[in-house]
């Protein structure tokens, strides 16, 4: 275990306003700080983030980290510190016990509690495979989405249940993402769309691409856009789904597909999704972050970073019409985004080159009448010098 003390990043929040007009616009994050190996992370390739009150758990390609927000301390654990395997692909925290459950990419499942790692793998437990992509806590159970099915571990009884094509409607068993909320577990499955597990009845329901073809999406809003899904997020009775072929939203009756060509998505290649509420979801893609900030008006904010200046760029758009473009001294750490996690008004973004923390001072959901930012070149020069 290693520790790095008191990280304090001085960011100058720049008001670029030279605007004269107002409009109904979403909140735009412009105050970002970054965490990398220089700040104590064990590795820059950040696969996942989980906020647990004042603690932020970070899973990387070579270790686990914890950021203590009040002090700014960064703690890290690697294999030499007892972490069972180097690649941490997913994290969840049991709200009742505080135990940290860690999905290990090729190393099984671990629990971090009381300073000790406990380890489950396919040779000592009911974990169906060691290549774990997703983990989530559901009541007293822990779900692991693995490359060969899903496992559900009852932490009270010690009982394991394995779900594959034999007892669940998995056309393929290559599980990717998993989430739990409000009595339902959702699995995003590579080749099998989305599966819904009702905890009360233990019944399954499957959601597949109705056209059944890999090379096309016949109709945008007829179901999940593709059977190769990568992430699921269920909030306010809304299911948000990411895939490598576009994204979608499901309200229990209607599907809505999202593609780069007609929205603020920077790419159709979605690594993960996190829904904030019924109207707002953040999609982590290989070319930045796409945020649908107001479902009804289809208003988006696209967050990218300028690869040359490393400044943040946020573009507000609706139906591909750019309403506003805001530059900030920093933005997401890298455009290859892998994860999103909410932290009250703040947002954490995991990328393949560092972790980003967007501070949501004054955040508001949906849209609000506010001035339209129109940055000047002078602002940007000042911003760079100030940073």
């Amino acid at each position, binding site marked *: 275990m290693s520790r790095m003390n008191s990280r304090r990043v001085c960011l100058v929040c720049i008001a670029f306003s030279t605007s004269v007009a107002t409009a109904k616009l979403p909140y735009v994050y412009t105050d970002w700080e970054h965490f990398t190996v*220089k700040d104590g992370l064990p590795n820059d390739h950040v696969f996942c983030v989980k906020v647990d009150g004042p603690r932020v758990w970070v899973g990387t390609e070579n270790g686990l980290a914890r950021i203590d927000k009040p002090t700014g301390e960064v703690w890290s654990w690697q294999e030499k510190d007892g972490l069972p395997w180097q690649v941490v692909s997913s994290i969840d925290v049991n709200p009742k016990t505080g135990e940290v459950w860690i999905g290990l990419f090729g190393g099984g499942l671990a629990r971090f509690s009381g300073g000790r790692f406990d380890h489950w793998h396919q040779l000592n437990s009911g974990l169906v495979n*060691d*290549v774990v992509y997703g983990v989530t806590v559901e009541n007293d159970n822990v779900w692991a989405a693995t490359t060969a099915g899903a496992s559900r571990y009852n932490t009270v009884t010690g009982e394991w249940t394995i779900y594959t094509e034999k007892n669940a409607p998995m056309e393929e068993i290559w599980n990717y993402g998993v989430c739990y909320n409000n009595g339902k577990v959702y699995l995003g499955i590579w080749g099998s769309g989305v599966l819904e597990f009702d905890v009360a009845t233990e019944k399954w329901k499957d959601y597949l691409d109705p056209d059944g073809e890999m*090379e096309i*999406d016949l109709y945008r809003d007829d179901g999940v856009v593709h059977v190769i899904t990568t992430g699921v997020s269920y909030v306010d009775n809304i299911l948000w789904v990411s895939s490598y072929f576009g994204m979608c939203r499901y309200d229990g009756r209607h599907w809505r597909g999202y593609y780069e060509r007609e929205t603020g998505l920077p790419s159709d290649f979605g690594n993960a999704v996190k829904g904030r509420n019924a109207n707002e979801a953040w999609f982590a893609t290989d070319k930045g972050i796409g945020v649908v900030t107001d479902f009804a008006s289809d208003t988006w904010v696209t967050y990218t970073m300028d690869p040359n200046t490393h400044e943040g760029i946020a573009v507000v758009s609706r139906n591909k019409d750019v309403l506003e473009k805001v530059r900030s001294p920093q933005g997401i750490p890298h455009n290859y985004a892998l994860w999103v996690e909410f932290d009250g008004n703040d947002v954490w973004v995991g990328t393949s080159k560092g972790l980003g923390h967007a501070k949501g001072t004054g955040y508001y959901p949906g849209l609000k009448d506010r001035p339209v930012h129109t940055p000047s070149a002078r602002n940007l020069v000042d911003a760079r010098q100030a940073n």
Partner: protein
Amino acid sequence: MKRLVVLSCVALAVCLPSCHKPQERQAQPVVTEDPVQVDAHTAEVVAKINSVSAYEVPDLALQEDEDYAETTEDVRPFRHVEPYKEHFLVQMEYTGPGRAIPEPEHVDTVKVGFIGPIMSTVSVATGGKSHEEPLGIKMLQGARLAIEEANASGGYLRRSIPFELVVSNDNGLWGASGNEIVKMAYKDHVWAILGTIDGANSHIAIRVALKAEITMMNSGDTDPTFIETNIPWVFRCISDDRQQGYLLVDYLYRKLGLDRVGIIRSSNRYGRFGVREIVDGSRRLGHPIILEMAYQLGLDDFSLQLERLKEVDVQAIVHWGDAREGALILNQMRQMGMEQPYFACDRCLLDEFVTLAGPNADGVICTSPWNPTHTDEKYLAFRERFRERFGEEPETYAAHAYDGMDMILWAIQVAGLNRAKIRDVLAHRAQPWEGVTGDIALSAALDDVGEVYLARREGDRWQYYSRQDLGVPREYTPLRDRTEAAMAQVSRQ
């Protein structure tokens, strides 16, 4: 202040090796720039990928295909409706920071991974029976020969160090291939991987390759969905069952004028997805498959399936499965008095099929991803070297593995020891790879869309026929014409 201290430590750590052990640095082989002659296009690609930072994406032209997998209009899914979105027409990019990772200083060998079914194990993925080892062993032979030849020519030329093949078996329980890829990527530190054969294991492997960001070259899995995943790290150097299915469907209905075709296939992923384009293509051409029967691997008695097919009076039977079952089914058919023409997949081109089928093999027609009887000098020389090394004939899996490994080795020589750059030079080749199996032209989905063949058993040998030879050239079924199709739709309205 703490940050300053840490930065100082980092700087010190970087300096220490050079201060204390200069002799070790001198012992490192000298890196030779541009050890391989490349064409101007590849040179430009290399220059671009070498010039970007961890945050930039090189400005490389992305291949755009007019049609996915050269699918013709008449077998296009939902062809009377313009789909909302078409996938796989534009090449995928890798936009991560991997290109900026420097080549490691201390490397004794350049490791390349191999994963294939080479050991006999019971596999859920393959229907509960181990059956692909003969194919996997041939694949390993092809890969090994390519490595040995590269080492005989100087190994990794920039440093004059040998290539090393890191071999893994994937014929285990579902998911085993994932564990193996993880191990190769994170512990063995291989630079690229060749494999696999089984469709299920292949999908598991490429999901891991995507996350670990390592090139995966496939030379033996003909499952069409393998490449339909949008992963920029995945390549395939063998034509798939989609291409073979398109040719067979054209031949069955356009050339032979058949109308009632039945299918018998293995009840595993290979059988299920192998016949998919045949089933869909038959229906789209107005001749739906009359009956499709599946069997469990390892079965000896196929009377149940064959009785059903006999009852529906099919004019021809298509088999999709392994050579053993293919031969047993054929023999049982003939014993039952079923004299219909017998068509099969490329796995029935193996000697095992002919040995078991005996005289019944005569007249059987199999699809083939290549023509092993071609007389190209490059192939003949390879065949001779292969015979000399292993005392056997190369076949489909050996020859394609040789090509796939050769492509990987070329990419390493050109790009250096950087996984992202190895991927880049392969993905942005301007010209088809001139392999021993023929020209390997990659589509925007990085799939081999080269010519496929039908092989007919005539006497004691297989005779291979191209589309042209068969009289069903590709021009016979025009590629999609969007303009005309749109006009026709308007006129219908």
